[in-house]
């Protein structure tokens, strides 16, 4: 009559076995360490980069929700100022009262022909409420020299690129010619109070930031704006916010209104936002490679311990227990490697998350809303997850050597 099977203290045995060959354990764990560190930092980096793009896009282009006159977007190439949102200030106040809305900001966006010191260039006129935009467009962060223009004054913050091409600097004058809301020719002479640097060349070579009231006057908008941007607490809730905004705006704008969340405005941004999920494939491949290293080193360990497994089998250890023991060893070593990797990856991600990574060179080559300084966004979940995943991957990888160990015949194993 056989004795009832006694449950083995697998984790304790595995922990003890992991210490028997520190060098081999370190080699096995190092593969998991590298993978876990890459996982933690990589996720923080990807989240930071995608967040940067979505955030910059929402701040400078789309809002969380954007309200425009119907037809504006299909004619966007010409920025048709005659298709404006009338009574923008009153509508913005009303939208600001919606639950979850942090700000509703009227903006003016129009093409302008700019005359500087004897040269003409096309420019992008941006009429902003400079006080309300401090946390959104953040014009104050773009002042490279001089100061921001003041509301009520014919002043402009010119992008460094366009200012250089026009041959003007702080204190000089620019003349802007625009097509007004009545489709006639309008214009204004403005004093350059500052030069702006966004790090986004397509902006720096064109932007002309003027106080909202000056842009409205120049374009005969009479209190209107070409768009109204609504910001909620969370960009992820933009679609629900768009529904609430739509209910307020409906029938308020003659000719109809376009109310779109940032996701509905740009396919590219939608793709970017979902690219994080696609990165899962990369992380899985990384873990697979770490797992292959674990398979190799643990196979070596199993071969070296053939006599030991033979003895254990001779003493009645079941095959399942042998597999479980080897898998537990793999999992323990994986957890050790994962913990070290998570610590290293976290340290790098947290440090770079504070100082940022400068991609100015890359930003110069792309025409996307992208702040050239990327801050990796570290998270506890990534760090803990990488320990769990590292342990699980190593445990799974140990199934192969475990299976090999379990198949050893006691008599044969003892002869080796």
């Amino acid at each position: 009559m056989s004795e009832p099977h006694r449950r083995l203290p697998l984790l304790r045995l595995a922990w003890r076995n992991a210490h028997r060959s520190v060098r081999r354990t370190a080699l096995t764990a190092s593969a998991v360490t590298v993978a876990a560190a890459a996982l933690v930092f990589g996720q923080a980096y990807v989240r930071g980069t995608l967040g940067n793009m979505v955030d910059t896009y929402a701040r400078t282009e789309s809002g969380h929700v954007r309200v425009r006159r119907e037809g504006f977007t299909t004619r966007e190439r010409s920025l048709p100022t005659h298709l404006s949102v009338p009574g923008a200030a009153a509508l913005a106040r009303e939208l600001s009262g919606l639950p979850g809305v942090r700000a509703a900001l009227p903006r003016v966006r129009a093409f302008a022909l700019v005359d500087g010191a004897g040269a003409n260039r096309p420019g992008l006129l941006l009429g902003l409420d400079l006080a309300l935009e401090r946390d959104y467009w953040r014009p104050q962060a773009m002042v490279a020299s001089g100061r921001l223009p003041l509301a009520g004054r014919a002043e402009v913050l010119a992008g460094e690129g366009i200012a250089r091409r026009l041959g003007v600097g702080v204190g000089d004058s620019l003349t802007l010619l625009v097509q007004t809301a009545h489709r006639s020719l309008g214009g204004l002479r403005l004093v350059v109070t500052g030069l702006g640097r966004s790090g986004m060349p397509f902006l720096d070579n064109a932007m002309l930031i003027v106080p909202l009231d000056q842009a409205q006057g120049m374009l005969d908008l009479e209190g209107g704006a070409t768009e109204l941007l609504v910001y909620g607490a969370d960009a992820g809730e933009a679609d629900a916010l768009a529904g609430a905004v739509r209910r307020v705006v409906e029938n308020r704008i003659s000719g109809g209104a376009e109310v779109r969340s940032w996701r509905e405005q740009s396919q590219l941004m939608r793709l970017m936002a979902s690219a994080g999920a696609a990165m899962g494939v990369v992380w899985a491949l990384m873990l697979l490679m770490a797992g292959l290293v674990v398979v190799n080193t643990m196979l070596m360990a199993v071969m070296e311990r053939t006599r030991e497994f033979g003895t254990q089998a001779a003493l009645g250890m079941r095959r399942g227990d042998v597999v479980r023991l080897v898998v537990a060893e793999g999992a323990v070593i994986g957890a050790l490697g994962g913990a070290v990797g998570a610590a290293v990856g976290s340290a790098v991600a947290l440090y770079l998350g504070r100082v940022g990574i400068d991609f100015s060179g890359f930003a110069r080559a792309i025409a996307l809303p992208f702040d050239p300084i990327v801050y990796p966004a570290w998270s506890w979940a990534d760090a803990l997850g990488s320990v769990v995943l590292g342990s699980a991957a190593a445990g799974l990888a140990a199934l192969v050597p475990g299976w090999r160990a379990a198949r050893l015949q006691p008599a044969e194993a003892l002869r080796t």
Partner: protein
Amino acid sequence: MTSTRMTVGLVALALACARAGSAQVTAREVLERLDANMTIRTVRMRAELIVHYRGGDDRTMTFESWERGTDQSFLEFTSPARDAGSRFLRQGDAMWIYLPRVGKSVRIQGHMLRQGFMGSDFSYGDASENPSMANDYDAVIERRDTVDGRQVVVLSLTARRPNLSYSRRRTWVDTERWVPLREELFAASGRLLKTMTLSDVRRLADRWYPFRIELDDALQTETTTTFRVLEMRLGVAVPSEVFTLRYLESGR
């Protein structure tokens, strides 16, 4: 072209009016006749520019213009009120704009030359360029045809110098009155940029002029533009000071 390269050239595109000629002239002779007809000592014109928007709206602007020879012209918008007082001066290939609300003249150059003149399908470049068809273009006769019942010769023109607004043109020239009745304007790439239809051809002194031009800028899909001469007088006295920056900015 007469009147105002700025205006009918606005007109400059149209150009070419002419005296009667033989039906068997060469392409080169056609161009020479057009150029000869375009050279007028002085002209004063009142005209309107109507921009037709997709969706049915129209915007009508009226203006008066003065031109002396082929190199000097001055134009002032008189209506609607928000455009009244906007002025343009051309001296040779140089062009300036003055808007009362800006209070300063601006030289139109570079990128701005490609923009729509007062939001129309004519560009500032169209209004400021002053090509001599015979000197600036090589021409071949593509075929003979009829337009609105009139005999025309279809010319294919290729620019001889690189800095012209249009590298290629195809022009339908009335072979009795030597007026272009239709013109297609192309970029160097061969892409069609503008299509112009000229009509309401009237006799003025010993010349024929198109009093109506319809222009469609293929790149500006929102609009088409009609240019219509309301009144044209040739040989009028135009004071020299009209063609100065001081006059442009002060109006006197």
